[in-house]
């Protein structure tokens, strides 16, 4: 089924075998509550790797049934991250979730060359699925959090992650808008030139499974009228499923606009590792954290 609302992920997941979440240093109330909600929803089994005493006290504090979790005791955040990654590599978990440790330490465990989660040459990137309240479908966007200024190869990888995510959400031939400041091809603006290159690659079948158009201004990606006024008639315009951002400032601003200005929900994950990795920020709402877990479960 094609998912057009984030809640619909729960319906899909309910029909599938449960995925196993492994939370690295999952000792704080944010992580534990989010994982607990996901377990209660019946979409995942959860393992919390971390200091057992801390975990149990958070459970008591929030009146949670700690028997819902598989708790693996580990005394420090760094060791917990390594252990969580090791569990994934051993096939004891399907996806990873960040707990109370810093993003740096979490990423280090994932990126570790010998015992991390990366295949050689793989590119780690962040994918967000947003449900803006005044848009008629989900918007799958990247990269808003990891790669500051993606080069052409990284942009191609991100585009492929966006497309893959769309496919997993049941969107068969997603429409991808490549963002720049304008629809004109301006060789001196890297985002403009690279958008033209990526669009051509898609036309030649070097990027598959999607309709890709760019460069486009943001207005033209989400509003067909704006595109037609400027003489661009592409099926992507006004009906985009995915947006590739040229840099982290643009992407991150969009992400925060969704949350803070539009008061809309989203889910986000890190792609490019052997399994999806949940990377929620403490600022994210409870609902968004749950959606992130659901999204990871969909992709795992």
């Amino acid at each position, binding site marked *: 089924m094609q998912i057009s609302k984030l809640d619909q992920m729960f319906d899909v997941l309910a029909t599938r075998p449960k995925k196993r979440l492994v939370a690295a240093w999952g000792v704080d109330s944010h992580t534990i509550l989010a994982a607990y909600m996901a377990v209660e929803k019946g979409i995942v089994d959860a393992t919390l790797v971390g200091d057992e005493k801390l975990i149990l006290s958070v459970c008591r504090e929030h009146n949670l049934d700690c028997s819902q979790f598989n708790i693996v005791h580990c005394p420090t955040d760094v060791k917990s991250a390594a252990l969580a990654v090791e569990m994934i590599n051993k096939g004891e978990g399907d996806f990873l979730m960040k707990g109370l440790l810093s993003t740096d330490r979490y990423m280090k465990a994932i990126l570790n060359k010998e015992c991390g989660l990366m295949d050689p040459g793989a590119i780690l990137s962040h994918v967000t699925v947003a449900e803006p309240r005044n848009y008629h479908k989900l918007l799958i966007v990247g990269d808003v959090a990891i790669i500051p200024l993606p080069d052409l*190869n990284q942009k191609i990888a991100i585009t492929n992650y966006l497309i893959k995510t769309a496919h997993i959400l049941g969107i068969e031939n997603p429409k991808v808008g490549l963002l720049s400041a304008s629809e004109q*091809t301006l*060789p001196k603006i890297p985002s403009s030139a690279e958008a*033209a290159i990526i669009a051509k690659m898609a036309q*030649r079948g*070097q990027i598959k499974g999607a309709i890709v158009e760019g460069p486009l201004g943001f207005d033209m990606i989400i509003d067909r009228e704006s595109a037609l006024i400027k003489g661009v008639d592409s099926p992507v315009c006004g009906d985009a499923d995915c947006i590739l951002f040229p840099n982290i400032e643009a992407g991150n601003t969009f992400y925060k606009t969704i949350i803070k200005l539009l008061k809309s929900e989203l889910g986000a994950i890190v792609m490019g590792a052997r399994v999806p990795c949940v990377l929620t920020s403490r600022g994210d709402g409870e609902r968004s954290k749950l959606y992130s877990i659901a999204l990871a479960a969909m992709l795992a």
Partner: protein
Amino acid sequence: MITKLDELAEKAKNSGKKTRIAVAVAEDSNTINAILRATYEGFIYPVLIGNEIKIKELLTSDIASNQFEIRNITEPNKAVKEAVGMVRNNEADVLMKGLIGTDTFLKAVLDKEKGLLPPKAVMSYTCAIEIPKYHKLLFVSDTAVLIYPDLDQKIAMINYSVAMARRFGIEKPKVALISATEKVSPSMQETLDYALLCKMAERGQIKNCIVDGPLDIFLACDPNSLAIKGIQSPLEGDADILIFPNLESANSFYKGLMLFGEGELAGLICGTTKPVIVMSRSESENSKYYCLALSCLMAEEK
């Protein structure tokens, strides 16, 4: 629409006009032979600038003296300057190179104060090639001037070739951007440029044409190859214009067609305020004649 080079010559003959051609350093049998036929046929009026005595020796006796003019300037550099000056002052419609090195000749054309190139304009070369095995003329650039054209120069090459094709009556020419493959690859710079050029044409930044590339010659000019490879191209294997990534490939392509493909051509320098003819000595008599006919077509007021 002009689909054969002979039709191009017919058009020049029937125009009823005599295009004034300033020939720089004309004392050269090759050059004189090239212009004689067109002079006889009455569609050009050559002004032969150079050593008068030598020029007269080369002219056949039966050509009427009112069909041409000679300006006696024996110093080649001065002869070139005189020829360029005539074109600048609208005393001639076309400039043609005679017995002088291409470097010296083009230097005069490129001169910022006294030359024929508008400020910031790109000088390039386009030729129309006729080969029995293709169903129409094929416009090719750049076979002679730009060695490694950058993006802006490629845009100019497309614009000049499109302008020329439109003079032949092809309203919306199909422009193929030629590479060894149809794939976009960061290791081949021209394929990246081509992606930009396609999008520029799509966005109306390059006008009056349909552009696709990268394409190889098969995919550009043969619908069967497109079908076999399963590639969609708006050109449908029916290209009018081929833009090459560099001088070596374009030059080899056209020379291959001349030598092995029974090709004939008509070519010109583009980007100048008036047409400029630079011919290679090894070009066939017919091709030289077609170059003159082409210069007449391009010299016409739009």
